[in-house]
């Protein structure tokens, strides 16, 4: 009876338009299952044996991406309670930590995933360096990866201000003071004063939305942290993954022939 119903259901257009392929265990069908799925098709249909060796890749790139997904989801969840204005930001952070059900879990997941992501990005880079995977034809992807590292650090830095406590404010004060010394763009950097830059019209001013860290800074960092930087990061990640595939998948030992 149930089997009959199931078989009947599998013949409907609804079922067939969602699940295009059967579970038939043939080379062709397995490949089709991957290729015809928008999420799975990011994976190569075939993977060289050494690429599945955890001791070789450490899985750091994948873990980094997983952490990015965790950060996106928990970040959106935090946005339901957090208001990015000087009046409320600190209170909302306290509220999340003390009174919101599962608030501490969500915030701590976001916080620890952020710390971990910086670590895994660096370890991923270290592995790529050790295995020589930055060499041709993968030089371009190394550069994309460096940009992604910078974006990760910027995301980390901009998120650091959002609790709006003393630690955050002074850390960002210290961090953005470095922008004063930017050549040509900062009012204390080389050629800055000669170009007429002042504390109220240089690159630091754009970052802060003022001459010192204040309410406009919180808002700017919030928008940058939640919208601008993740968007740029996603674009570069798409290119990064695409290039991995186009450059022949995960690098491997030089066997003198193609790996697959």
């Amino acid at each position, binding site marked *: 009876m149930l089997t009959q119903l199931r078989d009947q259901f599998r013949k409907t257009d609804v079922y067939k338009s969602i699940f295009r392929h059967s579970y038939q265990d043939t080379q062709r069908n397995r490949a089709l299952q991957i290729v015809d799925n928008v999420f799975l098709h990011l994976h190569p249909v075939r993977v060289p044996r050494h690429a599945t060796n955890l001791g070789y890749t450490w899985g750091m790139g994948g873990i980094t991406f997983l952490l990015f997904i965790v950060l996106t989801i928990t970040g959106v969840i935090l946005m339901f309670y957090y208001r990015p204005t000087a009046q409320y930001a600190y209170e909302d952070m306290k509220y999340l930590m003390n009174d919101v059900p599962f608030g501490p879990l969500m915030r701590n997941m976001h916080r620890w995933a952020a710390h971990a992501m910086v670590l895994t990005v660096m370890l991923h880079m270290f592995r790529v360096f050790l295995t020589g995977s930055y060499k041709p034809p993968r030089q371009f992807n190394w550069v994309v990866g460096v940009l992604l590292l910078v974006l990760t650090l910027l995301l980390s830095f901009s998120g650091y201000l959002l609790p709006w406590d003393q630690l955050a404010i*002074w850390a960002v*004060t*210290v961090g953005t*003071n*470095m922008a004063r010394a930017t050549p040509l763009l900062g009012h204390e950097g080389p050629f800055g004063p000669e170009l007429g830059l002042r*504390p*109220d*019209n240089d690159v630091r*001013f*754009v970052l802060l*939305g*003022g*001459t*010192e860290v*204040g*309410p*406009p800074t919180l808002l700017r960092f919030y928008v940058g942290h939640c919208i601008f930087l993740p968007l740029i990061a996603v674009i570069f990640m798409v290119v990064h993954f695409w290039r991995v595939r186009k450059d022949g998948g995960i690098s491997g030992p030089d066997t003198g022939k193609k790996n697959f």
Partner: protein
Amino acid sequence: MADQPTNEVVKIEAPVKPDAAPKPAQTQIASQPVPRKPKQDRAPEEDPGIWRMNRRNALWVGGWLAFFGFILTSTVGALRYMFPRVLFEPPTKFKAGFPFDYVVGEVSEKYKDEKRVWIVREKDGFYAIVSICTHLGCTPRWLPSDNKFKCPCHGSGFYKSAINFEGPAPRPLERAYIGLADDGQIEIDRSVKFLYEKGEWGKQGSFLAYKG
């Protein structure tokens, strides 16, 4: 120079391949010659202008000009948008009471929280020190018992004169403009700064001579 492109176009199209086999004759269906109108979308071959302006080219140029003009102006607008006209920050120029309110030898922290300025009263007069650490911009603290400014962030220390003597700070604290207003009050402008390393501490406005 103007007629070069025209010549080149002719040159490229002109050569005839010597070994090209003669094309087989078309079938009967296409043999009827179709009368053709001269093409309107190309400039005449003898047109010497580099632009060879006709309706299509004019629209092409105009269209791209409009597109890039729009992109450029909106980019400039978006950049300018990031520089606000009005800042909701405390004014840099303010009055700090009468000189006789201060005691000789005192480092006044009265305006530190709001204006980030210390006012120091010496025997010969006043000077104002901006309370922003020259290392990375934290607010140092005045420690009366140690007779020094000490930054809590990385431990930079400064003498009462604002000269740095310990920690990572690379240069002395900055002094701000100090003078007397018309009503006899001390006037300070934090936006006018005097840097020791540039030899500006002797300049007019860096020190307010006062005895009393």
